[in-house]
């Protein structure tokens, strides 16, 4: 097999099944960029359309370097009719368009699916928006954090309160989950196109992608059987179980006991073998859950969380010290699996969520500088000579 060398090391051509697929990427912030980063990790050529006139494109701090690996950047002003003409020429030689514009921008700037489909009939056009492109709220302005409230998940994690504490508004959830749905749908559409030659239009609702993962609350209310199901500190299956305070500042330990063997393991670590026979079945432990949780809490209160985690895992009990991100970076398991590889510039990024049996986790090249592929895209792909490009730059169409 051919070996391709990139910033992140060696890979076989077969691992990059999207090689030769060109993606025109109009997305920004998190969900779309994470989607196209993953497509790039599988070999696609991602052309990110940006503008030096927009402050949010020029600023490349925060998560930008982590979400924009494997991309080329071209600066074209989409608000300029001349820029739109250039983009239409790019669409003609692209396979996929990814966007998360507002509905108004799409039509105004001649970038909607009906128009682009005329240019490229087998185009895969992917639209990700807050609540979808149809329906009474299709024009609603949405942000991921607000959708985490609108989806109902915030209320399932913690009671609404004026300080927005402990209700899952942070961390971001809807955005990365949207990226998983979006990349899944695109890959399935690519597979279908390779079988049939069909193009496709995809209209993804971030709200729906979040609600789709909350079936139990809806089942319970739909069937009128009471309760909301698991969430927050109740995993809905353990007794005893939960997050317990340990010795030391902000030190916590998560424990989940579901089986008799796990219960025996916990009792052994707590040095309370007498409890095993007192609560011999899962049913009896669920009945006594409050008392058992209180017992574990008393024990945990004086424990060092790191040591307790070690002994519980040794004893076969699912347990984890609550880690901050600093703890994640020290996690020997994640380090062994190479989830956060070091880029040539010395910075770390995040690889694909999975690996193959060789440990490969996707191609990873550093994020692009603003407009650093203008020569390639405008010159090589569109065949514009230097004089033409100078004229377009003078008009403000590119740059």
């Amino acid at each position, binding site marked *: 097999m051919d070996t391709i060398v990139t910033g992140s090391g060696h890979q076989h051509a077969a691992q990059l099944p999207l090689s030769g697929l060109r993606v025109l990427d109009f997305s920004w912030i998190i969900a779309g960029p994470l989607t196209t980063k993953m497509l790039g990790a599988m070999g696609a050529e991602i052309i990110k359309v940006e503008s030096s006139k927009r402050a949010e494109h020029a600023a490349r701090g925060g998560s930008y370097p982590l979400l924009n690996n494997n991309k080329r950047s071209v600066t074209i002003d989409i608000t300029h009719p001349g820029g739109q003409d250039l983009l239409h020429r790019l669409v003609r030689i692209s396979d996929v368009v990814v966007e998360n514009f507002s509905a108004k921008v799409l039509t105004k700037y001649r970038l909607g699916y009906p128009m682009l489909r005329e240019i490229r009939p087998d185009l895969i056009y992917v639209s990700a928006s807050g609540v979808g492109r149809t329906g009474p709220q299709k024009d609603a302005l949405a*942000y991921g954090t607000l959708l985490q409230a609108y989806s109902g998940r915030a209320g399932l994690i913690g009671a609404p309160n004026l300080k927005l504490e402990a209700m*899952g508004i942070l961390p971001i959830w809807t955005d990365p989950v949207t990226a998983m749905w979006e990349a899944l749908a695109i890959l399935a559409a690519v597979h279908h196109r390779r079988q049939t030659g069909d193009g*496709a239009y995809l209209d993804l609702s971030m709200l729906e992608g979040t609600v789709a993962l909350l079936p139990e609350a809806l089942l319970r209310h739909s*069937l009128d059987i009471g309760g909301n199901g698991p*969430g927050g500190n109740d*995993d809905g299956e353990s007794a005893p179980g939960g997050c317990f305070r340990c010795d030391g500042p902000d030190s916590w*330990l998560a424990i*989940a006991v579901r089986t008799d063997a796990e219960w025996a393991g916990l009792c052994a670590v707590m040095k309370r073998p007498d409890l095993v026979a007192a609560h011999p079945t899962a049913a009896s432990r669920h009945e006594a859950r409050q008392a058992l949780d209180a017992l574990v809490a008393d024990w945990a209160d004086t424990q060092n969380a790191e040591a307790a985690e070690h002994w519980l895992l040794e004893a076969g009990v699912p347990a984890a010290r*609550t880690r901050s991100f600093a703890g994640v970076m020290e996690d020997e398991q994640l380090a062994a699996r190479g989830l956060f590889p070091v880029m040539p510039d010395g910075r770390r990024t995040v690889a694909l969520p999975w690996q*193959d049996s060789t440990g490969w986790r996707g191609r990873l090249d550093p994020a692009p500088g603003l407009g650093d592929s203008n020569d390639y895209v405008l010159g090589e792909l569109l065949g514009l000579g230097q004089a033409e490009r100078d004229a377009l730059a003078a008009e403000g169409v590119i740059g």
Partner: protein
Amino acid sequence: MLLKGTRVVEWAEGLSAPFTARLLADLGADVVKIERPGGDPLRQKGPFWPGHTGADASALFGYVNAGKRSVTLDLDREPGRLAEFLSGAAILVESQPAATWDQRNLSIAALQARYPALVILSLTPFGRSGPLRNAPATDFTLQHRAAFAYNMARPVDEPEARGPLAGADHEGPLAVGVAGALAAVWGLLVAAGGAGPHIDLASHDFYAHIAFEGLADWSNGERAFSRRRVKREGTEAAGGLTWILPCADAGWVMVSPREQHQWDRWIELLGNPAWAADAAFCGTRVERRRNWFELQAAMTEWSSYQSAEEVTRRAQAVSVACFPISTPDALLRNAQLQHRQFFDRLVSPSGMEATVPGLPIHLQTTSHGALPHARTLRSPSLEPV
């Protein structure tokens, strides 16, 4: 549909890997679920259909396994049946502990040798490699281990009183299932070249993967992470420019007029109250962030006399991002979701019906294929051995 003609065999239990296979079925694949005698343990977990007992009583099992066929195989007695079953399959989705493979003298390498083009997706708590590959874990403990739970209760005024929290409902393991489906279709595209990959997806990796905001902070030199709110830091989300407002009838909205032009329209909607003219109080984003909590109290005077739906409607009418905090009942009645035919109907063995989430994607191909919506779903009954 998209994956028409793709045969998938699932040898998996619980939530994540079976949800992966379910999504492949939603996309058009033909999925056979292999169950042990007595069935997937998820069949014993509620919520149950009211009045139902036995192996087909779990509505949650129904949601996760809708659209599949089920066969019962006693692989303890006849381990060779697994390989037989894989004849003609494109993808195997499995979540079995390594010991389960070893004890039955089964191996992934042997399956790959027999079926070189087969895609094998292993979806396990810690993955198939690394020092913890066989360590015990649940999605709850993994969310704590991978910083997700830490970040869910951050920032807070009193970290010692407000412990870390795991996610809502089954969103964690089901999101891992979405990533599993994504990985499986990648595998399918790879296998078109002749050799199917063995994909190793760890739930732990997934939870750490979505904590990349922490990696951004870490890359910028932050090492002393804390859950304690720095005074006047606001909510952190959107630079503190997101407010939660109590409304009439015990409802709540969240609103984020983060850009100046949005703020101007928002203030006009509030009737240009006197406090809004005080530049030291809320003149720019800097003051709004600093006075976040006091601004919330001021805005509440307006919101508390209207329903959350009314506040949302009026804010969105002037292009200000605003949504209610939905309850499950409100979601079931939500006009936007209903218009898009988001919900499916899940039918119990005796014909009882429940409303469940459907697919979040509307898809149309150029030859008029479409993903189905507002479906009637049934889950596979457990067949006797």
